[in-house]
C-alpha cells in the first residue's frame, strides 16, 4: 500500500476583497458574492511565484514526513503559471530543499488539474518501486483578465505531497481519471491572460468531468457517498463544488472542510490539493476522503484516501491551511493588486 507520507500547503499573505475589485469595474459586489460565493482571494507578493509557493509547501511536507530530502527520487510540479515556458520550476525547488542531484524532475501542465496530475505520477512511481519517495506539487499564481469574471477568483497558492510506501499519513485506496477533448478554457503561447467559453465551462466541462470521475471511482471501489467523511472538489468558484457535491449525493458537512475557496479564491492547480491539505489537517484515523480535481481541456483525477493514526501524530509539525487562511493577512487596494500582478504597463 502506497500513500502520502508528508503534505504541506502555502497561501500567500496578501488579499484583495471582492468589493475592491467590483468597485473598479462598476460591478455590484453583492451580485458577485451571491452568484459566485466569493469574499476575498489571495494575491502573491512581488517576489512570490509558483516556484516559491511550491518550495514553501514542500518544506512543510518534508517536515511532516520527517525524511532526509535527498531520499526523494522524483519531483513534479504541476502548474499553469510556471515562471518559464522553457526551464523547469522543479529544478529550482530541488536545490532550495536539498533534494537531488540524483533525482528525476519534470514540470506538468493541464490547466487546473496539473497538481493532482503530478500527484498521480508521483504515486505511480512509488507504487512501481522505481523510487523510494516522490513529490507531487500543485501550485499556481494564475491571472484573471481585468474586468473578466475570473478576476474575482483567480488567486495564488499550492500544496505538496510526498508519496512513499511506509509510515503513511494517508493511504491511497484507489485512483480514477476521466479525460476528453473539451476546449472550455485555454491560453495560447504568448498570451498574458487566458480565454474561456463562458457558460460552456459549466455543464459540458466542469460538471461533466467531475461527475464522471467521481462516479467512476465510486463504482470502481464499490463505495457510496455516505462512506466518506470528507470530499474535496476543484473550486473554480464557491458555487460549482457545492452544486456538484449535491448532484453526486454528498452532504454539506462532508464538503465544508475542504471548501476553502470563499476566502482563498481559485488557486488553479493548487485548488483541490490545498482543499485536501485542509482536510488532512483535521481528519481522524480511518476516515475516508474523496478528492476530484478538474482541469480545463478537460479532465478530472479522483483519489480515495484513508487517514491513518500517524497523520494525527505528524500533522502538528507544520502550518495548517486554516492558520494561513485565517491568520495574519494584508489587504490590498486594486492599484496595489494591479501593480503586484503586473497588470500596469511599465517600460522595462
Amino acid at each position, binding site marked *: 500500500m502506497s500513500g502520502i507520507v508528508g503534505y504541506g500547503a502555502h497561501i500567500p499573505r496578501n488579499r484583495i476583497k471582492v468589493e475592491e475589485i467590483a468597485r473598479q469595474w462598476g460591478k*455590484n459586489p453583492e*451580485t458577485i458574492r451571491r*452568484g459566485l460565493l466569493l469574499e476575498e482571494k489571495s494575491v502573491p507578493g512581488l517576489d512570490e511565484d509558483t516556484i516559491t509557493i511550491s518550495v514553501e509547501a514542500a518544506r512543510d511536507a518534508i517536515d511532516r514526513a520527517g525524511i532526509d530530502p535527498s531520499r526523494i527520487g522524483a519531483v513534479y510540479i504541476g502548474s499553469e503559471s510556471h515562471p518559464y515556458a522553457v526551464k523547469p520550476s522543479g529544478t529550482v525547488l530541488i536545490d532550495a530543499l536539498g533534494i537531488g542531484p540524483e533525482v528525476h524532475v519534470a514540470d506538468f501542465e493541464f490547466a487546473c488539474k496539473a497538481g493532482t496530475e503530478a500527484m498521480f505520477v508521483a504515486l505511480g512511481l512509488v507504487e512501481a518501486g522505481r523510487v523510494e519517495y516522490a513529490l507531487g506539487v500543485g501550485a499556481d499564481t494564475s491571472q484573471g483578465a481585468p474586468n473578466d469574471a475570473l478576476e474575482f477568483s483567480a488567486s495564488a497558492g499550492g500544496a505538496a505531497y510526498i508519496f512513499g510506501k511506509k509510515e503513511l499519513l494517508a493511504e491511497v485506496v484507489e485512483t480514477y481519471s476521466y479525460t476528453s477533448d473539451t476546449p472550455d478554457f485555454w491560453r495560447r503561447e504568448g498570451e498574458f491572460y487566458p480565454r474561456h*467559453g*463562458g*457558460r*460552456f465551462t459549466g*455543464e*459540458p466541462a466542469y460538471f461533466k468531468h467531475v461527475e464522471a470521475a467521481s462516479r467512476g471511482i465510486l463504482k470502481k471501489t464499490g463505495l457510496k457517498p455516505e462512506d466518506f467523511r470528507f470530499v474535496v472538489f476543484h473550486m473554480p468558484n464557491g458555487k460549482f463544488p457545492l452544486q456538484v457535491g449535491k448532484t453526486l449525493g454528498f452532504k454539506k458537512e462532508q464538503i465544508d472542510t475542504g471548501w476553502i475557496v470563499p476566502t482563498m479564491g481559485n488557486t488553479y492547480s493548487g485548488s483541490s490539493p490545498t482543499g485536501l491539505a485542509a482536510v488532512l489537517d483535521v481528519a481522524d484515523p480511518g476516515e475516508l476522503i474523496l478528492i476530484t480535481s478538474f482541469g480545463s481541456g478537460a479532465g478530472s483525477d479522483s483519489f480515495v484516501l484513508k487517514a491513518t493514526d500517524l497523520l494525527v501524530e505528524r500533522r502538528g509539525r507544520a502550518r495548517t491551511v486554516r492558520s494561513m487562511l485565517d491568520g495574519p493577512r494584508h489587504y490590498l487596494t486594486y492599484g496595489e493588486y494591479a501593480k503586484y500582478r503586473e497588470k500596469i504597463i511599465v517600460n522595462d
Partner: protein
Amino acid sequence: MREVAIVGAGMTRFGELWQSSLRRMFTDAASEALASAGVKQVDSIYVGNMSAGRFVSQEHLGPLLAGELGQAGAAAVRVESACASGGVALRQGFMDVASGMSDLVLATGVEKMTDGADVTEALATAADQELEAYHGITFPGLYAMIARAHMQRYGTTEEDLAWVSVKNHRHGAMNPKAQFGREVTVEQVMASTPVAEPLRLLHCSPVSDGAAAVLLCPLDQAARFTDRPIQIVGSGLATAPMALADREDPAVLDAVHRSAVKAYEMAGIGPADVDLAEVHDCFSIAEICCIEALGLVEKGTGRNAAGEGLTALGGRIPVNTSGGLKSKGHPVGATGVAQAIEIFEQLRGEAGDRQVLDAKVGLTQNMGGSGASSAVHVFRRV
C-alpha cells in the same frame, strides 16, 4: 390567392443544447415536421435565422440545411429580419403556397447561440449601427429606454414588468420544450441582478439554442396529411424607423400595430375575436407594449394585464401560454415559428395542461430589434 394550412410541426427543446449543432437542431425539428405529416419531399424551405454568420460562421443556410435534411434540390433560402426572422420565414412560406407557386413548404427557424460568440455584440447588429450601436447601446439598453418611456407616460411600474415574467414562467413550467421549468415569484424578479435599469435579469429572455418547423400546403390538400389542419387566415408585415430616436413615441410599437392591422384585415377579424396570442416578450416591457399595439387591451392599460390575470391561462385573452420568450427561450431565428407551433397545437386541442378551452382563433406576433419590424399571423381552426 389559395387558402393555406399548417399540416405538421416539429421543434427541439429550447435551451443550452451543448450537444446539438445548428444543423443537427434544424434536422431534428424539420424531420419531425415532415414525419408528422408523412411527407418525404418538399418544394421549398424557408429558414428563419438572424445571425448564424456571427454565431457559428455559417451563412448560406438555405442549401446547407436543405442538403442536411435530405432535400437537396429543393428551393431553399435563409430569411432574416433580426428576431422576426422566424415570423417572416413563415410569411414567405405562406406566400409561396398562397400564390400557387409551391404545394409543400417548410417554414423553419433555427439559431445556435451558445457556441462561444459574443451574444450581446451579435444581437446589437439588429440596432441602428450609426445612430445607436456606435454610441454603445445594446438591446437591454434600448428596451430599458422603451420601459422608461412607458413608465413615464402610463405609470407602469417595475412590479408590473415582474408580473409578466411570473405569468410566463408559470406557463412555461407546463411546457416540456421550455428552457426553464421553474416558476419565479415577483420578489425573485425584483431582486434579480440589474441589467439595464429598470430591467433586471428576470425581465429578460435568455440566450438559447433551438429550432422549429411547420409544414404548409394548400388547405384543399390538407386532408392528405392531417385530419386537423390549421388555416393561416392572415399575415401582416410592417416596419418602423430602426432607431428609437426616430420613432414618434418610443412607448408605442408602430410596426406591431401596422402589421396587426394588415393581418386582421386579411383575416376579416378584429382583436376582440382573438382567443389567444403568442407575443414577442423579449423583455417583459415588450409584452406590455405589444398587447397594446395589437389592440388586445386599451392603449396605456397593458401594465395591469398580467398581474390581474387577463393574459394568464384562464383569463380573457391568454398571452404566451407556451411560456413566451422569457420562459420557453429565445433562439432568435426559431422563435417566430415556435410561436406558430404553440397556436397550431392549441387550436388542435393538443396543448395538454396549457390548453385554452375551445380556442378557435389564434395570433402570433414576432418582432425584430427594438420594434423596427413585426410579423403578425392569424390562425383559425378549420
